[in-house]
């Protein structure tokens, strides 16, 4: 262990500038406005756009909690200073409950299995009605959202309480809580993605679908973490605790899960392509017609090939501007991926993208930033009394 930590350590309280506050409020206002206006203009487009953005930010909120939980379970030392950033991301989790309940209002528009004639048209869908019905789906969403909220409350709460008391037992408590959360998350997130995205095409199924959504979730979580590390450092709020070494490791994770996403996406695609069974191939046929083929290839190129090659060299992982560019690319691709899963089911399979999609996304982005801002206004940017913080301060990446 290198004992010479000569660099200065500093954490300043986070004080959002008035411009930042105005931007957040403007984003939320734009979101509410486009949601209201959209419902009046085109109900279907509004709900599909809402679903994509809601799922997108739910993933980021959950990704933050999942990252924090993994660090607790493996008793990681290096990440104890970055963990607070991930914990800030979890401040979106309370919105999942409200957002999910609002989503249920649009269930009749979104989910074809809510219509009698669709159910009667196919014996495949008829056989699934015991699972695919609104009361049961509402129950599942509420259980998922409440469960995630409870785990966030305790895991993040323990970490925050430690800032005051410095009690090491809180770290130990978080280990078992995190194990329970990871088990719960594996199941609940599969249900969540199957319900919200896969059931849009009720005759189709893929057993790897939950993992596919998780792969995108985790990749984009690291992109947000990398952006937070760089911007907080640029603002001069944290010095010494979170360095380029932490950025390097987070970006390594980002590259790793870039490959993981490609691996899972290909696993899903290849088995369906190879077996060539009609009720399975319809999903990919819809995504190879009416211009969707171009978007499918955009995903392959800009969600896997470009970030993978761009993140290979060591020096580039430590280059702020480069990491910002790749992270933004990955976040855009995560949106495109969810959009690609939802939109081919509507508008007669044609590509529709416009102000409605952007407006509602901006609203959710505002909520997400609002959650992070409020979190950091209340709590320290670094878990200063974490028993493993000295490991994070002395962290350095060997080559």
């Amino acid at each position, binding site marked *: *262990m*290198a*004992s010479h930590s000569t660099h200065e350590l500093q954490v300043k309280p986070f004080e959002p500038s008035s411009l930042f506050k105005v931007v957040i409020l403007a984003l939320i206002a734009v979101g509410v406005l486009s949601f209201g206006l959209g419902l009046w203009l085109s109900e279907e487009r509004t709900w599909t756009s809402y679903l994509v953005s809601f799922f997108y930010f739910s993933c980021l909120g959950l990704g933050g909690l999942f990252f924090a939980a993994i660090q607790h379970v493996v008793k990681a030392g290096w990440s104890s200073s970055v963990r607070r950033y991930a914990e800030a991301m979890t401040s979106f989790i309370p919105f999942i409950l409200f957002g999910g309940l609002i989503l249920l209002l649009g269930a009749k528009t979104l989910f074809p299995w809510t219509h009698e004639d669709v159910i009667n048209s196919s014996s495949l869908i008829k056989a699934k009605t015991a699972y695919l019905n609104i009361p049961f789906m509402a129950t599942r969403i509420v259980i998922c959202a409440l469960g995630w909220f409870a785990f966030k409350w305790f895991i993040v709460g323990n970490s925050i309480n430690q800032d005051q008391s410095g009690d090491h037992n809180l770290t130990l408590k978080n280990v078992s809580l995190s194990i329970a959360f990871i088990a719960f998350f594996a199941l609940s997130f599969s249900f969540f993605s199957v319900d919200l995205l896969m059931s849009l095409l009720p005759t189709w199924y893929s057993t790897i679908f939950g993992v596919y959504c998780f792969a995108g979730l985790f990749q984009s979580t690291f992109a947000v973490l990398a952006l937070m590390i760089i911007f907080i450092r640029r603002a001069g709020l944290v010095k010494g605790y979170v360095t380029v070494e932490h950025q390097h490791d987070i970006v390594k994770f980002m590259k790793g899960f870039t490959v993981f996403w490609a691996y899972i996406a*290909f696993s899903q*695609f*290849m088995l369906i*392509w*190879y077996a*060539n069974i009609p009720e399975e191939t319809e999903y990919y046929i819809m995504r190879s017609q009416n211009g969707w083929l171009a978007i499918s290839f955009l995903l392959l190129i800009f969600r896997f090939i470009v970030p993978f090659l761009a993140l*290979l060299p*060591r020096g580039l992982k430590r280059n702020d501007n480069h990491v910002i560019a790749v992270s933004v690319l990955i976040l855009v691709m995560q949106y495109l991926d969810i959009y690609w899963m939802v939109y081919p089911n509507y508008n007669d399979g044609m590509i529709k993208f416009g102000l409605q999609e952007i407006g509602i996304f901006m609203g959710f982005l505002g909520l997400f930033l609002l959650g992070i801002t409020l979190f950091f206004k209340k709590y320290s940017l670094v878990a200063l009394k974490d028993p493993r913080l000295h490991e994070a301060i*002395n962290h*350095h990446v*060997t*080559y």
Partner: protein
Amino acid sequence: MAKLMPGLAAIFTDEHQVLEAARKSRDLGMTKFEAISPYPIHGMEDACGIKRSSIPYVAFVAGMTGLLGALALVWYTSVYDWPINVGGKPPFSLPAFIPIMFELTVLFAALSSVGALFYHCGIPRVDPPTIDPDLTCHKFAIFVPENESGYEAKKLETFYKSLGAESVKKVEAY
């Protein structure tokens, strides 16, 4: 690495002292010395001034070779030499080839990384010279070969003694 050299070894009992000694040796302008430790020491590669090895590049090139080699292999066997109709799919079906291309990429990159590592570390070595058996357990050493620039046994001995070396001894070959 391959040639054995006589020289001088300073034995330390403290990890921090050997790290400091390595840093000071590099500051003196020495480039050929080696730090010997029973386990990896954080910051040692920096202190010794060791540059990055070529392993990442070897892995990348070997990985690309594996990728393209696998493509050539499946193309020759399944498309060119002996095309078989499988499920009505065209002979050249990239999705079916990707698992093989992926596996050979990983295999080539992994094996050549290990090979490059062995090459850079000069292992395995039959009957390696020993400076002190305790160096595999709880002691550390700085070894300076005789062809090091500014090598002067007397001066180096006092230099390492002043840095806390437990003993400094002559080594016939290392």
